[in-house]
């Protein structure tokens, strides 16, 4: 398992959340790592809010096209069957509930599934991008985040950072654990093999219950049920 690279480990675990046929939007941060891990045979369609459905992997060096970029402004390729459209059509997909899964970065998630991922206090309010549209509009929001920031828990009782969208998070994946929100409860469903329940409790401020999902999907290598 990617012990030395928690971000890559999170991205690998996030792959298991995606089903064939899913239309998926990748937010900035850890989610962008997922694009290069996806294989075409997984049958997942990546949507980029600047107007692409069917985003492919990064181009080889020297083959970048300034008019083929993703929402993080990185050069991309497109797969057979891809389409281009304007921002209004793109956000009709996002706000109209047509995106199956949004994988989003997070600054904080609280025990009610509230998400903060757009603004650090004390800085001027100068950027939101599509973060709120995705958090409000996607059918399912999976938050990908390191478990702590400088040793401080990012999974908290109540947000102290500005809200992106209320009660929007379905699943949180960190390098240590997978949590799901279900009927107002926060459930710990999976643990990484190199951690313990005690360590996760110590590094998590949010109150959660331990409940391996009934009928859960097969585990990804490196992950175990608590």
């Amino acid at each position, binding site marked *: 398992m990617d012990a030395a690279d928690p971000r890559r480990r999170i991205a690998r675990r996030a792959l298991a959340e995606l089903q064939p046929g899913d239309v998926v939007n990748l937010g900035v941060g850890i989610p962008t790592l997922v694009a290069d891990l996806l294989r075409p045979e997984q049958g997942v369609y990546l949507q*980029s*809010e*600047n*107007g*692409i459905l069917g985003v492919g992997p990064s181009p080889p060096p020297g083959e970048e*096209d*300034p*008019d*083929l*970029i*993703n*929402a993080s*402004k990185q050069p991309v390729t497109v797969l057979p069957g891809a389409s*281009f*459209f*304007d*921002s*209004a059509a*793109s*956000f009709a997909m*996002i*706000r109209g509930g047509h995106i199956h899964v949004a994988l989003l970065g997070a600054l904080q998630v609280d025990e009610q599934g509230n998400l903060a991922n757009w*603004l650090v206090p004390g800085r*001027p*309010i*100068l*950027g*939101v*991008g*599509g*973060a*709120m*549209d995705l958090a*409000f*509009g996607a059918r399912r929001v999976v938050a990908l985040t390191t478990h702590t920031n400088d040793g401080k828990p990012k999974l908290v009782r109540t947000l102290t950072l*500005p*809200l*992106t*969208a*209320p009660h929007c998070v379905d699943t949180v994946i960190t390098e240590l654990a997978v949590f799901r929100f279900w009927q107002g409860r926060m459930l710990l469903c999976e643990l990484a093999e190199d951690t313990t329940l005690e360590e996760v409790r110590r590094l998590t401020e949010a109150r959660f219950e331990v409940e391996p999902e009934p009928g859960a999907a097969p585990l990804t290598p490196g992950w175990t049920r608590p």
Partner: protein
Amino acid sequence: MAGDSASVPKLRSAAEAAALIQSGWTLMVGGFGLSGCPLTVLRALEACDVGGLTVISNNLGEPGRGLGRLLLQGKIRKAIGSFFTSNPDVGRAYLAGELEVELLPQGTMSEAIRAGGAGIPAFYTPTAAGTKLAEGKETREFDGRLCVLERALHADAALIRAARADALGNLVYRGSQRNFNPMMATAADLVIAEVDEIVPPGELPPEAIVTPHLFVDVLVLSDPGSGSDGRG
């Protein structure tokens, strides 16, 4: 087509087009980053004696590129958009009190432009309800969901970018350069479209035309030297 003004009545030089823009105007400027940004027209606008502009654009270019150059010239008074953090000059101008910023969620911004072009004065959306970006805005519940009233956007001029035009001003786009450009073409009194090539009418398949010519007032040919291929 050589693109002379006799066969293409809407064709102007970049300088002629930029000279149509007046101080104090509200401008829509297409582009996501520099992709789909009309860099040739913006370069020509640098040479014009205008100021006090309000710019509606997703970003304000990048440091020293695109709209970022007009910002450094002090021509822009206010920016309305969704993501300005990628150009540190915006933060500096904002903190110095030289630039007013109005931040909108990107989907709200694109919908506000679409609405402005379609004669819809305002609309409700759940996006941003309960957040800082909805402070001071009217809210109303629909089907149990709190929604924010957002005003449509309209501009004096839109500066847009496309790949090809025909002599009438019909436009087609390339790759991800399309982004906000087609909506901006509908939502301004004067629409200036920068393109790489102008072809005779009939050469663009009708099914492929994204922006019909009635939305376009002025055509400008892009100058590769202006970095209008996105590399500048």
